[in-house]
């Protein structure tokens, strides 16, 4: 878990310790993956559905994280890409009878293109303007989905009801179990890809753009192009999540993708930990489970409880859950290796 961004600079200084940490992290990840697979056979349908939603939101938040966490561009409209992914998947399944798995690459492609097209003008403006442009997108999309001209495809306000995929090859799995494993596989691929992207040259360039655009430009980074590409990749991840979400929920409708969804993803991002790949999972868990907790505390004002919990988390774990965990891990290890100001993986940028 501790092999992320901030550490890259450390590699040269303490190679042997880093190797141990690296190996430890691999083991940790494998245990985590084994536990996730084992969950298929431990939990009932409903809990698996919830876990599936956690995976799906984790992928969506990961996408948002790439643009906001790593590249420093605030997007308040990623719910729109989630919606586009969901609709691409739903339309292909119902209108063109494509198998559900084949709709994921299509959703990824469409969202990447839309993301690129929107990023092109918006990211040249940057900063707050991007936040507003994406927000506008999130507001607009539900109405476009209702628009009469597209009704034959989108089902208008009625939305599209989907069938649930059964396990293939006669595997002895229930539909819920299969969908969970399928989502888990997609999630693992998405996280490995994201990690490789962010840990490599491109990831470094992204962070350079975030931390000091002028310096990055001086180093030869094409600012606008990199930002736009980042945005497209980010939209791609969130779009795949949307497609998976449509398959899991078996229903898409404009009301499912209100502007609130974008805010929820943003909340998940901040709570999980900005600029942390693992943080996306924590953020997703928060997004899925916290409303239920809030409602259990008070049926009269669940929104208020949710807000209070949110403020409490930001107060006690300002760098998100991932950041807080990293800090605890460091304290347990007894060595504050990040004292010299190199940001934690859940850094507050």
């Amino acid at each position: 878990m501790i092999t992320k961004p901030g550490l890259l600079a450390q590699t040269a200084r303490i190679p042997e310790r880093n190797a141990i940490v690296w190996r430890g992290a691999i083991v940790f990840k494998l245990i985590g993956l084994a536990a996730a697979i084992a969950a298929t056979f431990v939990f009932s349908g409903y809990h698996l559905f919830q876990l599936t939603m956690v995976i799906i939101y984790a992928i969506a938040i990961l996408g948002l994280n790439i643009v906001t966490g790593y590249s420093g561009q605030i997007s308040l409209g990623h719910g729109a890409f989630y919606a586009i992914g969901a609709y691409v998947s739903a339309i292909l399944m119902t209108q063109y009878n494509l198998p559900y798995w084949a709709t994921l690459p299509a959703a990824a492609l469409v969202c990447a293109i839309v993301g690129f097209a929107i990023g092109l003008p918006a990211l040249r403006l940057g900063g707050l303007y991007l936040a507003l442009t994406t927000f506008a997108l999130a507001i607009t999309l539900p109405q476009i989905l209702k628009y009469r001209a597209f009704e034959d495809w989108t089902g208008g306000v009625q939305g599209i009801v989907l069938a649930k995929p059964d396990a293939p090859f006669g595997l002895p799995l229930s539909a819920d179990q299969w969908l969970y494993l399928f989502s888990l596989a997609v999630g693992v691929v998405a996280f490995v890809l994201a990690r490789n992207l962010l840990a490599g040259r491109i990831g470094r360039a992204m962070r350079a753009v975030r931390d000091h655009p002028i310096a990055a430009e001086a180093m030869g980074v094409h600012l606008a192009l990199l930002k736009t590409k980042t945005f497209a990749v980010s939209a791609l991840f969130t779009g795949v999540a949307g497609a998976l979400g449509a398959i899991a929920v078996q229903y898409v409708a404009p009301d499912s993708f209100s502007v609130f969804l974008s805010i929820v993803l943003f909340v998940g991002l901040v709570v999980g930990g900005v600029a942390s790949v693992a943080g996306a999972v924590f953020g997703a868990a928060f997004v899925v489970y916290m409303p239920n907790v809030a409602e259990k505390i008070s049926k009269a004002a669940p929104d208020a409880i949710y807000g209070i919990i949110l403020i409490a988390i930001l107060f006690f774990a300002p760098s998100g859950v991932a950041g807080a965990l990293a800090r605890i891990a460091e304290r347990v290890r007894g060595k504050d290796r990040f004292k010299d100001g190199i940001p934690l993986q859940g850094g507050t940028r």
Partner: protein
Amino acid sequence: MTNSAKHRLTRREVLGGAGAMTAAAVISQRAAADDMPGVTATEIKIGQTMPYSGNASAYGAIGRTELALFKMINDQGGINGRKLNLISVDDGYLPPRTVEQTRRLVEQEGVAFMFNTLGTPTNTAIHKYLNMKKVPQLFVATGADKWGDYKHYPWTMGWQPSYRIEAQIYAKYILQNLPGAKVGILYQNDDFGKDYVNGMKDIFGDRFDKLVVKAVSYESTDPTIDSQIVTLQSSGANVFVNITIPKFGAQAIRKVYDLGWRPTHFITNVSASVGAVIKPAGVEKAVGIISGVYLKDNTDPAWANDPGMNEWRAFMSKYMPGADLNDVNHVFGYGCGLTLVQVLKQCGNDLSRANIMRQAANLHDLDVKILLPGIKVNTSPTNYHPIRQLQLAKWNGKTWERFGEILSATAT
């Protein structure tokens, strides 16, 4: 309540008694328990999703009323000795959360059935799931017409008059009483609005395009509908069918008045609320507006001494002290709850899902006392629209003055 229901009950009791005398009683009881998920000797578990948070949270009052009503029923001994345990959970009016919460209720909590879940998109999201699992989705709190589709979704039933039925009644009235009508329609661009337009089409048929001179829509997220009203006025319409939710209903009434437009103005039952629409718009600006009503209006002094409403008020003061007595949602929830109580009474001791659905489709002239006099709840295996009657009422500046007979329409 009907003879047949009473008869059924006794027969079942007799059978039950005979069964108890046999040695196989234990086995048969176990078998019965297996067939009756969510039901024990002392409890019936019922599930519900409600928007306690989010945009539609005002409707949460319906769920809270039903919780209180079932508490009252339980205080009175429950139904056939069983307490009603309503597990009412929040979905924030977001379909994905409705799916999640419903699955939790059905699979984890093991509820016998879902009751009065609120919202059209939210119910659509669980429509297929519940029907596949054969879990009754009873008396959904939405006026969409599709909840009466007994052929394709035999486990789902609505309650209130569907929007389509309501529109059919307006259209019939227009044809019969307003010769030379030039109709202008303003509708919300969603299920809700389109159901009304379809209802008008059912009655107008081929003449729809001739009778309706202009139909314009708005989005529920629009800030105002002023320009739509201006468009309708300039179309020369002399009948205005105002298919809006309360916020826009009030806006429309005000704008129509301010423009000096004086059409025969119909407003949906959804927006007929005195507290939420008429008063904000201005009581004098709404004079002459016609709407279809089926509930006794809790803000209407005409019902001040009505026995049915007095029962409701007694319930409210004892079980929901401090709640807003002007909120129609409390009346609605009370009515839905009472209808369910009757269904469960008719079930007797056979609380299998199949029998709950059978009894829900076996209500005959049920008098739910918060419904207008003459409006009865009727269902059958081929009628999943429990309430399909309305009475027209005209706003006279002080109250909705009902006129004419109780009208009914046939949904297609």
